[in-house]
């Protein structure tokens, strides 16, 4: 009998303590709400999971109008420059001081079109993201504005800092705007699949001595720090911080690095076009 009472007593005491701890967490403010300190790993995972599911669910009925329209993209850029760059920055351009203190940090949007469809991006712009500092733009904005913004955010993925600067100038100048390529050019993804050979690329990366300067996942490369590690290359956005990372640009970089980045320490190794496509195929498959 005695032990049963002891167990009940222990249970009550621990329930009370748990309650008190919970109250303290909420009431006293032990939980650290300071924006300057990052979320811990568990919090971050939960937030990401919630966010992705919620946005995919809510945007399921939207249908984007024709997005590949130069006029739409130019209008979208005008709005983007005015309303979004303060927090998200742009290729080669920093966000404003307002965007600096936010937690979560507003991510650069150059990669947004790889996580989200045009419809999902439009939904985010219209509705914002709760408890994250992403404002809802639905109130002051027409539906057309929102699709224009979404069209430009999708185009960001392919822009270099230099192109972005040219486009900024062309916002004011119609004659200049005529000459610019508002719609994304061919990136070479189809050709990569059709004509290049990943296995051969892997062998070539070793043969050309790329692994002497670069850590390349899947190929033995110890202590190779002459150039940046090529880890997670599939997801990487820029090549040498200069141009968007896509097959056509990557082949150009492997063959003639100095044409993309004058004065770079990456050597020209006399790579043929075919060899470069094969190596690009391997690099663009690296996901670790």
């Amino acid at each position: 009998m005695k032990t049963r009472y002891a167990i009940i007593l222990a249970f009550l005491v621990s329930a009370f303590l748990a309650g008190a701890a919970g109250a303290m967490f909420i009431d006293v403010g032990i939980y650290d709400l300071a924006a300057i300190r990052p979320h811990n790993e568990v919090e971050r995972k939960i937030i990401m999971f919630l966010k992705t599911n919620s946005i995919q669910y809510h945007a399921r009925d939207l249908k984007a109008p024709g997005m590949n329209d130069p006029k739409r993209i130019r209008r979208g850029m005008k709005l983007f420059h005015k309303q979004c760059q303060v927090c998200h920055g742009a290729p080669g351009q920093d966000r404003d001081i307002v965007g600096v203190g936010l937690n979560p940090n507003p991510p650069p949007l150059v990669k947004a079109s790889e996580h989200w469809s045009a419809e999902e991006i439009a939904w985010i712009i219209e509705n914002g993201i709760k408890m994250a500092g992403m404002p809802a733009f639905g109130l002051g904005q027409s539906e057309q504005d929102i699709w224009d913004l979404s069209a430009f955010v999708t185009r960001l993925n392919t822009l270099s800092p230099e192109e972005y600067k040219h486009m900024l100038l062309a916002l004011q100048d119609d004659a200049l705007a005529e000459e610019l390529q508002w719609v994304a050019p061919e990136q070479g993804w189809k050709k990569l699949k059709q004509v290049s050979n990943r296995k051969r690329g892997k062998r070539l990366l070793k043969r050309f001595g790329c692994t002497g300067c670069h850590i390349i996942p899947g190929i033995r490369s110890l202590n190779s720090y002459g150039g940046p590690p090529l880890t997670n290359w599939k997801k990487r956005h820029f090549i040498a911080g200069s141009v968007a990372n896509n097959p056509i640009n990557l082949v150009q970089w492997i063959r003639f690095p100095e044409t993309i980045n004058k004065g770079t320490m990456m050597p020209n190794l006399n790579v043929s076009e075919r060899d470069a496509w094969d190596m690009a195929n391997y690099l663009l498959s690296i996901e670790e």
Partner: protein
Amino acid sequence: MYVKILIIILSVGCQFKQPDVLDEKIKVPDIKRGKTLVFAYGCGVCHTISGIRDYPGAIGPPLTDWAKRKYIAGKLPNRMSELILWLKNPQAFEKNSAMPNLGISQDEAIDIAAYLYSQ
């Protein structure tokens, strides 16, 4: 003199506390403050950096094992003094670099650099 700071940081690691060895005028690098600044400036949304959990950044090169790297942006030798210049104004070295000028002050750049080398 920055080279001296670097050597000290590398050898003493996080328990850096030897201001007496340094020139009086130089600020003592504060690795912990460096880490806070790295988060506040959002370096992690663009770079993979050990010890910084943020949006998984893949806009710029990974900065893991930074102390072993030979060059900064494929142009400058990787030393404390050059890294501070790069952090303050990347466009001075690469006109069209996609790493923005973040408006970092000299003091902040010293702490941030110290954090990167301590990884």
